[in-house]
């Protein structure tokens, strides 16, 4: 536990998300906000506006005319698509670095995060989730705690894996025992430090054991399922592998079957390839190389 204070200190020194991203998340979390509010949250950030317009005009979307403003982009592509782009661009630099403690090569955590975000959006649609705007971002950020815990996991890797193998612990339970924190707990603390909307913090904090929440939360359930699908299909898998607990109650709550997980997996794989191409062919994007794990 000697590391516990160190770890908490690290949270403070993590480069914060751009203020536009935080502002945008808060606008999205507010059911009263309109497209105009969303455009307002982004338009003063020249860098992000330029990047979004460049992405919108890439061959990926195949638009017949040039998109010249954010309003225009939202009309052509739809608000959700544009927001997903904005958040993907914003998180790529925080999530693209190698996380050697988890055996994640450069770009792999971002690939996993985008895949979970895409899968979360698909599950949100399948389960008619009301607050679908936030779910993509929650999926993107669910593993943000790994960025801080990485070095500590690297130092104690042998002991963590021993507890997983010999004692049948989930990887996050072993993190908690050995380091004093699991990556979800640290992620939740990062979320609060960054003042993310509470529903997103809840998703980050409980994405491995959603049924531990006193009142089940549909947003958390969706992010949990999205993560499961990506782990099962090995999308951006690290050395923690599939060593997390299956929470079958989530399937009942969401009224889903295993075949639903399978078809979401197939959809996400297709979508992810497209997103990787988009970012690989857009020089401005922080993640230039799609993850070749």
């Amino acid at each position, binding site marked *: 536990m000697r590391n516990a204070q160190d770890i908490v200190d690290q949270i403070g020194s993590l480069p914060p998300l751009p203020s536009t991203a935080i502002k945008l998340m808060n606008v999205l979390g507010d059911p009263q906000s309109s497209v105009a509010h969303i455009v307002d949250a982004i338009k003063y950030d020249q860098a992000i506006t330029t990047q979004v317009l460049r992405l919108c005009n890439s061959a990926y979307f195949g638009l017949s005319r040039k998109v010249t403003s954010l309003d225009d982009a939202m009309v052509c592509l739809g608000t959700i698509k544009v927001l997903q782009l904005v958040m993907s661009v914003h998180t790529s630099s925080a999530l693209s670095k190698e996380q050697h403690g988890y055996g994640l090569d450069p770009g792999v955590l971002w690939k996993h995060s985008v895949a979970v975000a895409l899968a979360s959006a698909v599950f949100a649609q399948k389960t008619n989730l009301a607050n679908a705007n936030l779910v993509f971002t929650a999926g993107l950020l669910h593993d943000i705690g790994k960025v801080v815990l990485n070095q500590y996991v690297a130092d104690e890797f042998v002991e963590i894996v021993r507890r997983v193998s010999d004692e049948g612990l989930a990887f996050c339970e072993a993190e908690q025992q050995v380091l004093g924190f699991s990556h979800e707990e640290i992620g939740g603390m990062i979320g609060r430090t960054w003042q993310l909307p509470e529903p997103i913090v809840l998703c980050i904090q409980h994405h491995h054991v959603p049924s531990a929440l006193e009142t089940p939360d549909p947003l958390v359930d969706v992010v949990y399922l999205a993560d499961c699908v990506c782990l099962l*299909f090995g999308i951006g898998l690290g*050395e923690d592998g*599939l*060593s997390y*607990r*299956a929470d*079958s109650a989530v399937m009942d709550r969401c009224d889903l079957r295993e075949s639903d997980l399978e*078809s979401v997996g197939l959809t996400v*794989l297709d979508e992810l390839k497209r997103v990787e191409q988009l970012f690989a062919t857009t020089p401005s994007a922080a993640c230039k190389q799609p993850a*070749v794990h």
Partner: protein
Amino acid sequence: MNVVVDIADYAVTAEAGASLITYSLGSCIGMTIWDPQAQVGGMIHYMLPESSLSPAKAKASPAMFADSGVPIMFRAAYKLGAEKKRMIVKVAGGSQLLDDKGTFNIGKRNYVMLRKIFWKNGILIDAEDVGGSVSRTMRMDVNTGRVTIKNRDGEREL
């Protein structure tokens, strides 16, 4: 030459010195075939047992599913001179979440489907490293037929 076999893909080769490699096997199955006499090797990384889930996707990427991908890989190896009776078959993957109720059992079903296909066709598995909850990387040297599996505990020959 290193040939990377992506998820939902397969490769066969008779090229001397080639290595086949696939990364990040979770509940998916990685399977290699090798004919020592013809010096032909193959590898598949399939995601799901049955193509009935999406016939359209199975048509576009047969290696996504065991029942559509495995026969295609064997046929591709035969075209390069491999023969079924000489084939050495190794299997890895099929990992699971820590599951008390068997809810997310894609890994297990992936493996069972392979056993079914092999049983019908009289093919034996020579070595396997299946199940558990680790991520695996599978590699085969086509010259020697040597297959290695790497996971968080290290790398070992299969």
